[in-house]
């Protein structure tokens, strides 16, 4: 089994929103960045992957098994860091660590201690006294202590300062030194995804707009501008799909960023 997870034609509907026909997978050894505007379906996709929601139709396989058969076995090997994830805020770091550790068969306390020390997280501190950045770093440390094969993070870097974000990037790339592991993280910060993701999935209005390796996506789009002197008017710049791009005489094109690609896809979806 080369993929840590596979979603095949997954549908899930709610009263005011539905996720339509999502097919997505992630090979071991890589990071998948899940991009999209707020409310596009990123969190729903992640909840489906964790079996916090069940799909209306379609198939979900995680670490080679399905939740119907081996939910707790799968969850032994998943680490999860939620957006605004709250443990019981009146408990101390030590208490929480001790509580969580009892659920897992594997527990690397030494590694966890190192991480807590590195991040300056004092063991006797109550969780409600941690800053937002510290909370996320604590959650990630905790999620890595049972040495998961798949780490899932929902908006881990949103609202954090650049230093904390850098620290998180380092933790993720460190985990990937083991090529059997894989990471999925959702973000609306395209910069973070562009920097460290190997695969990128873009979800817009409940649909998968794009899913490929980051290199292929960046190759697939160009930022095009046509100088006025050529007499053609095509606006100032636009993002164009490389395949449909015929070379205009005098046309300038340069690499587009993920942000620019995302914005152009969102505009297209709204048209």
């Amino acid at each position, binding site marked *: 089994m080369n993929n840590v997870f596979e979603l095949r034609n997954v549908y899930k509907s709610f009263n005011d929103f539905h996720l339509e026909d999502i097919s997505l997978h992630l090979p071991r050894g890589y990071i998948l960045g899940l991009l999209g505007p707020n409310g596009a379906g990123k969190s729903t996709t992640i909840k489906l992957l*964790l*079996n*916090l*929601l*069940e799909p209306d139709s379609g198939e979900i396989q995680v670490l080679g098994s399905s939740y119907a058969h081996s*939910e*707790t*076995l799968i*969850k*032994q090997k*998943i680490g*999860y860091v*939620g957006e605004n*994830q*709250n*443990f*019981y*805020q*009146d*408990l101390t770091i030590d*208490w929480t660590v001790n*509580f*969580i550790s*009892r*659920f*897992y068969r594997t527990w690397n306390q030494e590694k966890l201690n190192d991480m807590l020390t590195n991040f300056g997280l004092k063991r006797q501190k109550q969780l409600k006294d941690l800053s937002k950045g510290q909370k996320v770093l604590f959650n990630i440390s905790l999620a890595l202590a049972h040495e998961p094969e798949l780490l899932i993070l929902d908006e881990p870097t949103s609202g954090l300062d650049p230093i904390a974000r850098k620290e998180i990037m380092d933790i993720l790339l460190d985990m990937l030194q083991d090529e059997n592991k894989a990471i999925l993280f959702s973000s609306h910060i395209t910069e973070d995804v562009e920097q460290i993701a190997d695969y990128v999935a873009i979800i817009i209005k409940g649909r998968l707009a794009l899913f490929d390796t980051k290199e292929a996506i960046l190759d697939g789009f160009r930022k095009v501008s046509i100088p006025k002197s050529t007499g053609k008017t095509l606006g100032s710049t636009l993002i164009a799909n490389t395949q449909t791009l015929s070379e205009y005489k005098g046309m300038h094109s340069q690499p587009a960023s993920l942000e620019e690609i995302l914005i152009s896809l969102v505009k297209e979806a709204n048209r």
Partner: protein
Amino acid sequence: MIHLLYKDLYLTRKTILLYLLIGLLLQFNPSMTPIFIFFITYGVLAKTELTEEKYEGYTLLSTLPVSKSTLVISKYLLGLLIVGLATTYTLILQLWINNLSGIAVSTILGIAAATLIVNGFLLLLSYKYGATRAITYFRIIVLSLFLIPWLLQISLGLPGEELILWASSLQASVMTILILSLIAYGVLMLISINTFKKRMS
């Protein structure tokens, strides 16, 4: 399972201590004794469900390698534990203070049985509607069904005597009542597991 129970006991430790203290004072008026078993159980379960709701505890716990049934079963075990603890506490204090002359053992056990069923229902409501709404509904139901007649009875004089008479008439079958209440509690738990699974999907 044990660590889930331990976590709940730890998070509600202040509530438990407070009720035990109030319970001690209530023992000096045997007619007030029965409400202690009920209120400590209600207090602890309501507190634990509100805590889970406040910190999205069930979402967090569901991402851990523990089944949804186990999460629900642990709460029902917590209820059972508190009822058992409160009943034993009441019996010991009654033996010590009133030498069991103020209130019949069967009455205490009967109240324990009723408490179990009623609080099993509270848990079911909170898996169906979430803790805050469940507690509101629960209060309305309990007030109209149990407390109002009971308070009326007290205000009409002869505090507790009729209850004691009623309970002693059931004395022979108190074991049957306990067993039946445990069965009902178990059934409520099974329905709750189902409700919780639906709610989390």
